[in-house]
């Protein structure tokens, strides 16, 4: 790890070092940005342009394309306001809980011996499960926990208790939460691992040499170093949970108001016609929320980089 650190430090030193000629330095530094031009252009076209289009459409009437604020006004009323509130609350919970659990799993395998099969299994599984969701995932949970589900049957066999008789249900926010964990936890494992790598063994050694116990190490050394990255990952999980759509829709059939589901109903449904631009308005609101999250993420990562680079 030490070797890698010095390797990355070196180019920075060189880049800011003395170069001959002011003008040519300016030209050279601006030419340097050419290297990321293809990437920048691609992102501008693939990500930036759609965002602008949505922002414009949010302020147009669905049928006449005249400029209007009515979409934004409607987006903060009634069921759409409830949807925003529900989405934010759900995303918060679906960030914190998988965040903690993902960290525990990542840490558990991280401290396993290098090259361990277990470590490989968990990391690759995380890569695959982070992309799994939607109707197939809902179906798996229904197969497991519905009234005729496998787990329901096991619990009934073992204890004689039918959890559905006692008020358990899969088809509300709790069910959504349970299902969201399935891809949120793997996502957390994937994105927290690089931060865990940054915890140098030397620090642990030093702490122990000074007589610190496990708790004290985490309280004074490991925790504070890791916390900014952890927070950053939570922000990402929050954003990912906010965006998720198909799983919640499949499980609850519209009985839980969530903004992503409402956007789908407005733009792709069979019932409401002629209010597409309200969907764009809701989309714009989501993008703004995400943008705020990303700004926070940026600040948090700057803090983290101090120790972990």
């Amino acid at each position, binding site marked *: 790890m030490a070797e890698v650190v010095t390797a990355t430090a070196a180019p920075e030193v060189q880049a800011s070092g003395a170069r001959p000629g002011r003008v040519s330095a300016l030209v050279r530094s601006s030419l340097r940005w050419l290297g990321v031009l293809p990437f920048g252009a691609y992102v501008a076209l693939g990500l930036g342009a759609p965002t602008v289009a949505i922002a414009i459409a949010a302020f147009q009437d669905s049928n006449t394309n005249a400029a209007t604020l009515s979409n934004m006004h409607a987006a903060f009323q009634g069921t759409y306001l409830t949807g925003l509130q529900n989405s934010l609350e759900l995303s918060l919970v679906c960030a914190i809980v998988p965040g903690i659990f993902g960290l525990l799993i990542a840490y558990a395998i991280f401290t396993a011996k290098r090259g361990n099969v277990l470590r490989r299994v968990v990391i690759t599984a995380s890569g695959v499960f982070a992309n799994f969701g939607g109707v197939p995932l809902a179906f798996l949970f229904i197969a497991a926990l519905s009234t005729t589900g496998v787990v329901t049957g096991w619990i009934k066999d073992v204890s004689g208790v039918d959890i559905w008789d006692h008020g358990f249900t899969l088809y509300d926010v709790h069910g959504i939460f349970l299902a969201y964990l399935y891809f949120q936890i793997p996502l957390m494992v994937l994105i927290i691992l690089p931060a865990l790598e940054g915890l140098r063994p030397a620090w642990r050694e030093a702490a122990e040499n000074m007589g610190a116990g496990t708790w004290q190490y985490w309280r004074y050394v490991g925790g504070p170093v890791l916390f900014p990255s952890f927070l950053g990952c939570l922000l990402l999980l929050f954003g990912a949970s906010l965006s998720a759509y198909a799983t919640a829709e499949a499980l609850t*059939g519209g009985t839980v108001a969530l903004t992503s589901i409402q956007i789908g109903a407005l*733009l792709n449904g069979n*019932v409401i016609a002629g209010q597409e631009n309200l969907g764009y308005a809701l989309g714009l609101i989501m993008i703004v929320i995400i943008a705020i999250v990303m700004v926070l993420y940026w600040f948090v990562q700057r803090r983290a980089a101090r120790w972990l680079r």
Partner: protein
Amino acid sequence: MRKSKAIATFLVAASTAAFAAACGSSSGSSGASSVDWSKVTHLTASGPDSMSALVKAAEKEGQLNVITLPSNWANYGTIMKDFTAKYHIHISDAIPEGSSGQELQAVETEKGQSRAPDVVDVGTAFAVEGATKGLWAPYKVASWTNIPGIAKDSSGDYYADYGGYVAIGYNPAKVKVAPTSFKSLTNPAYKNMIGLNNSPTTAGAAFAAVYAAALANGGSYSNILPGIQFFAHLKKIGNFVPTAIGGPSTVQNGTTPILIWWDYLLASEVKPVVPGFKIVIPSDSSFASYYDQAISATAPDPAAARLWEEYLYSTTGQNLWLQGFARPIELSTMTSNGTVDKTALAALPPAPAGALTFPTQAQDATAENVVTQDWAKDVG
């Protein structure tokens, strides 16, 4: 006199043939005869706008683009196959499982492309919206007068094709007490059993189920709230399973042994996979809804599109829908004519008595807004 008339007739025929042949070399999608089929609003008994001319022009186009027609929905698979066999016109079916909204979207975004939809089969709200946006070409099929007045647009932009009633389907193996009406669904024996196909905020069938429940609980076409409250009550007592993936699979695996859906879909999609499956139209409410046909104003194959409509509204086409357990719009006329397929008719649950009624577009739009705003609030 007769000789000159004969010569004149011959000359007219020859020049028409020559003219047609000259125009006939253009590609299929542009319409190969002297008639601009995209402007034709109805067929005439003879002449350039007659059925035989249409058949010729359509066969020349050779292609028909349909959209969101699942092959096991109202027997569309057989209908498309028979049409192709009869007229040698190839049919391309885009996004078979798509929604009405996607159909409108496709017509708009694919304008000018050869894969753009020629004809659509959409829910009434979308037919109306399409008409507002000027997407449809007005056309009145030969049997236009057999379509009830409330089921078609007066200028011919869209017209009902087939439909059904909201029905309750149940698996007798799991459901010991047979449900007969909406009221009967509140029986505590049905705990965790009753499902809808999809969500009323996104799917027409589920929306219609809520409307039907409203009619059974003191509501009306202008007041859908009692329907929402009914399902809220069902959820509270634990009978309602709000999953959006209710369908043949969930009936099979016992998640929703009772399913509220269109009668024709319960018959064509659930009955084949659930042995002994029973379908009943609720005794306390009958809500029928029909889908609508429309021809795209920018259809790449206008003659084939119109031939397709003529085919669907012929006795053959209407009976094919009937064989798919859907009720064709001209059913009452065909029944009195005796042209109806009696075996197919007998396989359907008996239709409630009385004439067909639908909510008006205004009532529909109001109800849709109420459901969108209140469904999650009341039922969630």
